[in-house]
């Protein structure tokens, strides 16, 4: 069978090629499809039986016919070559060069699907990564090995934010052990170029591996691209001991490609046409972030996802939120007010921050300060809503302070420059400065001792 080419295609549909009469083909095997002009495409067996084999053609089936298409079954799984020469390179979704340089050769080859990490081999993410961005460091701290997506929408500055995170979170002293894996699925040339330039300007290109599938590249290739990229990331992290930051953009394009193939296969849809296995499929990708007890490296993942119609309940952000360890949600409203980065404080969350902050990590009061800001900001938003109905005159003195607090949080704490790198201590100082706009009695989430130490306003005895 190996090496032998068959011209036994029986049907072509939505990126799928049905091949009849080739027995004994294994699921997941790699396939080379050659069209009438002699060009080859990559395929993968996604269903197999004695009668018919279903091949997913990663470059799509456009331009293929049944009469002049040849299929070769390689009898091997989808693997890529890995070595430290990866660094600084640009590949497509199946690991072929996109940078006019020769393909990577190595005796180390790994299946892009990986295999599930044993939960008993993991260790909890718990090292604080300073991104220099107040909202993230202060309120939704990123921890090594965490998966923390950015939920965004068209026209919002998610790329700038992701680039700023990458740029500023680099730990200088450990630079040699730091790598970025950038995986772009269906993004515009401009967006991909933006990142490339940013890495270049920052002088880190040599620490970056890029896997690129642009908006006009074949959509089905997007299904394998994150797996290829993560296989590289796992190699860098667990074989070479590096701290790897993986940027995956845009998950929505990935999920749409998955839906396209699912439809073509006739899979039963769950919601909005997305197949029922979208959750498990995304989990296979996102769960590849983490730390392993016996290894020194780590994989921290920042997926970027644009929410269709800014709807956080859409299946893609929804299922992602169910898998990742929190989310940074961008707000169109803040963005329209010129606020950068427009992080929406209430729906954003980092679930593993509790292990990465506080005494010994950042500062002892950090967890309580973060709690207090969420709570006070939530209250302030309530007051703001009330004020929009009844006006500000009828508000109490305290409520008026809440309004001021909300505004200051947005314009001073959330707002910061794209190249502004704040230390966590600066962030906490700023937090206390703003919390001091509120009377100490309103601050129920911090301790008396915190108030004594950091609150700027003297406790004023309120006269009856």
């Amino acid at each position, binding site marked *: 069978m190996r090496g032998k080419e068959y011209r036994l295609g029986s049907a072509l549909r939505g990126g799928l090629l049905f091949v009849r009469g080739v*027995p*004994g083909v*294994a*699921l997941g*095997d790699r396939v080379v499809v050659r069209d009438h002009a002699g060009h080859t495409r990559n395929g993968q067996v996604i*269903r*197999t*039986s*004695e009668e018919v084999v279903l091949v997913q053609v990663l470059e799509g089936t456009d331009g293929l016919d049944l009469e002049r298409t040849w299929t070769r079954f390689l009898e091997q*799984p989808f693997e890529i070559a890995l070595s430290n020469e990866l660094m600084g390179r640009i590949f497509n979704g199946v690991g072929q060069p996109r940078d006019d340089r020769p393909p990577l050769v190595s005796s180390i080859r790994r*299946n892009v699907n990986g*295999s*599930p*990490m*044993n*939960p*008993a*081999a*993991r*260790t*909890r*993410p718990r090292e604080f990564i300073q991104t220099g961005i107040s909202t993230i460091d202060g309120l939704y701290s990123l921890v090594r090995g965490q998966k923390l997506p950015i939920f965004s929408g068209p026209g919002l500055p998610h790329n700038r934010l992701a680039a700023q995170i990458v740029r500023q979170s680099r730990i200088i002293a450990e630079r040699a052990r730091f790598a970025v894996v950038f995986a772009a699925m269906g993004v515009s040339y401009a967006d991909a170029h933006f990142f490339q330039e940013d890495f270049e300007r920052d002088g880190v290109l040599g620490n970056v591996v890029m896997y690129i599938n642009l908006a006009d590249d074949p959509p089905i290739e997007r299904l394998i691209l994150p797996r290829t990229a993560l296989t590289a990331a796992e190699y860098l992290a*667990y074989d070479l001991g590096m701290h790897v930051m993986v940027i995956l953009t845009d998950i929505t394009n990935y999920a749409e490609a998955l839906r396209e193939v699912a439809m073509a296969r006739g899979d*039963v849809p*769950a*919601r909005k046409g997305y*197949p*029922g*296995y979208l*959750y498990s499929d995304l*989990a*296979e990708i996102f*769960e*590849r972030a*983490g730390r*392993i007890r*016996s290894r020194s490296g780590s994989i921290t993942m920042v997926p970027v996802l644009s929410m269709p119609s800014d709807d956080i*309940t*859409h*299946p893609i952000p*929804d299922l992602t*939120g169910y*898998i990742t*360890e*929190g989310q940074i949600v961008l707000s169109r409203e803040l963005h329209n007010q010129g606020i950068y980065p427009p992080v929406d404080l*209430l729906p954003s969350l980092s*679930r593993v921050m509790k292990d990465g902050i506080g005494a010994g990590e950042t500062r002892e009061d950090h*967890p309580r300060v973060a*709690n207090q800001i*969420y*709570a006070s900001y939530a*209250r302030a938003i309530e007051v703001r*809503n*009330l004020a929009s*109905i*009844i006006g500000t005159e*009828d508000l109490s003195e305290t409520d008026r302070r809440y309004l001021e607090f909300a505004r200051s949080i947005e314009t001073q704490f959330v707002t910061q420059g794209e190249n502004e790198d704040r230390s966590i201590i600066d962030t906490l100082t700023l937090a206390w400065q703003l919390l001091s706009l509120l009377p100490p*009695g309103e601050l*129920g989430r911090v301790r008396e001792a915190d108030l004594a130490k950091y609150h700027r306003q003297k406790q004023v005895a309120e006269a*009856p």
Partner: protein
Amino acid sequence: MSTALGRIIEVNGPIVTVFLPQVTIGEQVRVGELALVGEVIGRDGGRAVVQVYESTESLAPGQSAVPLGHPLAAELGPGLLGNIFDGLQRPLTEIREQSGDRIARGLTVASLDRKRLWHFEPAPDLSAGSTVAGGTVIGAVSETETIMHRILVPPDVNGELVNLAPAGDYSVEQVIAQVRSRDGAVHPLRLYHRWPVRKARPYGRRDQAGVPLITGQRVLDTFFPLLKGGRAAVPGAFGAGKTMVQQQIARWSNAGIMIYLGCGERGNELVEILETFPQLTDPYTGRLLMERTLLVANTSNMPVVAREASIYMGVTLAEYYRDQGYDVVMVADSISRWAEALREVAGRLEQMPVEEGHPAYLASRLSAFYERAGRVQTLAGGYGSVSLIGAVSPPGGDFSEPVTSHTKEIVQAFWALSKELADARHYPAIDWTESYSGYVDAAAVWWAKNVDPRWSAHRTEALGLLLQSDELARIVNLVGPEALSPAQRWVLEAAALLKEGLLQQSALDDVDSFCSPERQFALLDLLLDLYHQGRDLLGKGVPVQRLLQLPVLGRARRAKSAYSNGQMDGLKAFAAEMRDAFQPLSLEYAGSREGSA
């Protein structure tokens, strides 16, 4: 039982069709060169449809299929506690020894350690000639410092004891007794036996009596209690706090045995338990929590068929400890992921979907699963219970979706998590209007007897204040706070105090993470007393502003973290102090009933 060799005909995701006549539904089959195991879920002529527990990548038509002659079964014996298993009961630490950081396919690993020796003490009242039946306790080993593991006659064996081993150290494989059944067959008994996971273990009879499961979480115990042997669901959007609620229950509840089932969720959440529980002590026994805990983990990136099986594995282990007379609690995170696994298999079989792709049998499977909860009189005559607490992850946080709505019809306690509360960092984000418990009356008996006879009245009053305040808040949002009377303003304040000072309970607060029943009631009493004092003063003409400015309110909010379970005296002293704080106002306005409000 057949030993015929079959072959693979088709591979479609986890579903493998094989040519293999004579296999039974539920029977396990080993397929392919990697010897992957699955179970038969359908027959069609000589073909059998097998759902395979592991990834089927690299399987090909023509490869072999071998029937194993038995269904998926659990190994039940000492060595379960403190361990972490996958959905097929393979110990994950042992898998790690064998295949490293990643789970290789086709591994066969014994569930229970074959080498370890256990000190067995035979039951003093039994000897050769005694009559035994399924469930009879023939002896015990101490599985952990706190847990005595009773060795049971398997449910399907009964007859006359031929012999019983003397006290001594035995491995699980050694025969410790023999039973001759009426037909003359002699059954060797070991420290463990097997039981098919999809079949509920038998018991004597159901028992209705029940005491509350104390979770140490105020909003649960005080407002929406669960009984031992009860069933509860925790539905909520992502990030609303389902896992936290379940982890808190796993940490703090007064269960005899705790089973934590990670079903299609995050690997790191299990690591969290594995890394923190060994350092935590049980507030009731003072012993390490891990001694009474076992984990079953089939995380989201592990194969879906094993995920489907994992809830049955979990509940079978739970029933086994129930049969030994324990109150077992299993928290399952998340039942929705199990339903999705079911849906995925149904979809591959091209079964007709009814709602959002789910098969028609979703509701019946779901209720059959929850039916395995309950308090029973065991076959041995003692009492034990299985409580089931399932998380539900509704798509889009919409509770009208199939899994949530079917679950709602099955469970008695429904702990609805609200996205709005979670966004405002009101944790646990359990919504007091959406949640309910059908166990309140039974719990009230216990609280009245063991804590305070006013429990029921207090609970009702507090819930009433919360609901009234929600109503008032709607008015405020329409026309502003000025529209409210002073008494209504005070209700708003009282409800705010109840939310902050009672309902909110941070899992991360060392002092407050666990709240004893006594302290739960004391805090409730304190806050209601505060409300009453203020209400009386309003009646005397004290302006509501004066009340709102009392510094004691801030202290009442923080009382939950200021006084630990061991500082009940401090809390009582504070309650008295609080009452005193109202005194000056009371004197000032004494007799001036006409004063402006």
